[in-house]
């Protein structure tokens, strides 16, 4: 029995859980203060923020779809960071994946869904993977900081998508400015909740989530990735192909982002449009950071933030509070967690110094008697 609890303690980081809950509380408090200062009905607003996602089937479905997007993006970040590379370029990989998936659907509009959908998925995966391969190689071979290159590539991707969706791949209808042609309806994933964004894509996502968790936590490959991420020099010393593992992790991360783009198109939007992702990847990145790049917390925190996000949308509709309060609360959680870590370290150090002093004094007294 004791052994069981010991194992439980090893598996769960209770300190982290407490920190997360406190940070969430403080962040909501900060949100409340801001709401009060800016003159909103705080009680009503908070109620909407927390309960909004459950106010209707449609909100609930949208919330789940959003949680799916956050979770996959967060996991994509987890995969990279596990091997020691930060994929900040998921946004670009995502929208390029969406664009290509949409256009492949347009090209194959007369084909059977059994051909078109896999082709679109494959296209999105390849494009996303390739777009992550570039900064991955630059980092490994030339030691170019991947944070800057991926962020720059995000901007480049936005313009590439802008060019194609306004130019060669534009919906020929003159009323449309910058969307691709709508997909053949038979290509769309089935809706799980009518008139919401929630589609069968979430089932695929659940399988994918399980796979990522399994690979990272339970397989020899995941173990090797962690070694490379923790100490690349040691990994090389121990005979691992560290460079290759980093690039592969980055490419997988990019592939996942590309696939998310495809899900957005085939599950919800039905075409590529510039609003296909509203910096969703960056929110996924935030989620991953709060989850300290661990898969299971990533899933849970995605759900929490999805609830807050659609709650915030509901709050904007009903109470009129700008939805941006959601970002404020989200980043407040990060600042709180970071601060909590620093404060805890400081307290720990102070406590140890005090204990050391007591210990020495005790001995001194003992010594004095001897003398």
């Amino acid at each position: 029995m004791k052994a069981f609890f010991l194992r439980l303690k090893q598996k769960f980081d209770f300190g982290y859980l407490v920190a997360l809950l406190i940070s969430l509380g403080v962040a909501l408090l900060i949100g409340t203060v801001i709401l009060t200062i800016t003159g909103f009905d705080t009680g009503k607003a908070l109620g909407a923020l927390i309960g909004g996602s459950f106010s209707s089937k449609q909100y609930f479905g949208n919330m789940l779809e959003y949680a799916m997007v956050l979770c996959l993006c967060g996991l994509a970040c987890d995969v990279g960071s596990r091997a020691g590379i930060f994929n900040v370029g998921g946004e670009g990989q995502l929208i390029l994946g969406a664009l290509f998936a949409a256009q492949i659907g347009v090209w194959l509009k007369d084909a059977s869904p059994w051909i078109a959908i896999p082709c679109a998925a494959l296209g999105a995966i390849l494009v996303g993977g390739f777009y992550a391969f570039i900064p991955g190689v630059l980092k490994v071979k030339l030691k170019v900081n991947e944070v800057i290159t991926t962020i720059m590539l995000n901007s480049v991707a936005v313009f590439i998508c802008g060019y194609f969706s306004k130019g060669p791949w534009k919906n020929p209808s003159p009323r449309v400015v910058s969307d691709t042609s709508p997909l053949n309806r038979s290509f769309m994933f089935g809706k799980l909740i009518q008139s919401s964004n929630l589609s069968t894509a979430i089932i695929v996502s659940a399988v994918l989530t399980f796979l990522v968790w399994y690979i990272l936590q339970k397989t020899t490959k995941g173990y090797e990735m962690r070694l490379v991420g923790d100490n690349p020099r040691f990994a090389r010393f121990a005979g691992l192909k560290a460079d290759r593992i980093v690039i592969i992790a980055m490419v997988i991360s990019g592939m996942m982002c590309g696939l998310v783009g495809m899900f957005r198109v085939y599950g919800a939007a039905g075409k590529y449009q510039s609003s296909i992702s509203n910096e969703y990847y960056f929110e996924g990145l935030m989620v991953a950071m709060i989850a300290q790049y661990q898969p299971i917390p990533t899933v849970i925190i995605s759900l929490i933030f999805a609830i807050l996000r659609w709650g915030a949308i509901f709050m904007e509709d009903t109470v009129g509070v700008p939805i941006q309060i959601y970002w404020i609360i989200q980043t407040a959680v990060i600042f709180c967690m970071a601060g909590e870590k620093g404060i805890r370290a400081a307290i720990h150090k102070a406590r140890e110094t005090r204990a050391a002093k007591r210990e020495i004094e005790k001995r001194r007294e003992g010594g004095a008697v001897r003398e």
Partner: protein
Amino acid sequence: MNDNSWSNILTVASSTLNQMLRSATPVALAALGGLMTEHAGIMNIGMDGMILMGAFTAAAVSTALASAALGIVASVIFGILVGLFFALFTVKLRSDEFIIGCALNTFAMGITVYLSRSLFDSAGISNAPHLHNISIPLIRNIPFLGSVISGHSLFVYLTWAFVILMWLFVYRTPVGFWIRASGESPETLRTAGKNPERMKWIASILCGVFCGLAGAHLSLGNLNGQFGQRMVAGRGYIAFACVIFGGANPVKVFAAALMFGFFDAIGLQLQSSKLVDPDLTSAIPYVITIIMMVYVVVSGQRRRERIAKQQLKKLELK
């Protein structure tokens, strides 16, 4: 070639160079701040957010108090606060600089638009009192050069002064030496009786101030008193790349910013000429930034190899 086409070329060239100076300025201002944190050994990718908040503060205060000057002062004060906030986490609490930088950028997007919407009932601000372009007497009459140099916002000229002042500060004052030592070898500074953490705080505050100014320039100098959610457009990251590219030396960093400005201007020129699609030309500065980053690394490696070879020769002569 007749006179007409010559004068056409000159006009295009002067307007390109004029635009280059214009485009380089916000990046250069932010990079001047970024090079401080770089010298102090803090990886600062939160500059984008710092600029955005500076831009909002300037536009909002300028609107509220009907004074562009007060808007700029407010953005400086706000810059100090942001610098303190950034240092609190990165220096005092020893948080991950990357996480704090990312969070700061997202926080900036949230808080500025939230405040804009709840204070001004709109996601952006327009028609705030702004700075007018300065037409410099005498210089404006010089052919070609006049139209390049004259007629910019005050910030453009201020930036030139700041570059020189910053160079003097970093390389010619004791505090500049201490800040550089705090990043390169903090323990050395500590044993010399100076507190490296304090230097990092100073660097962070200066970075906040310059990013605040960059923001004020964007909203009140570059645009006519406007604020928008996406107005920074990754300039904070580009500034970071310029800092790396220029080896954190103010003059070289400014040169890097000018290079960025040049390509931005070329892009805008192409755009107005309608030869190339505007989306593709807009991507140029970002592609250039990536190439810049690669170049820095590769040329650094080459340089090391060359030095090593020279040293080898010296040894062989012995």
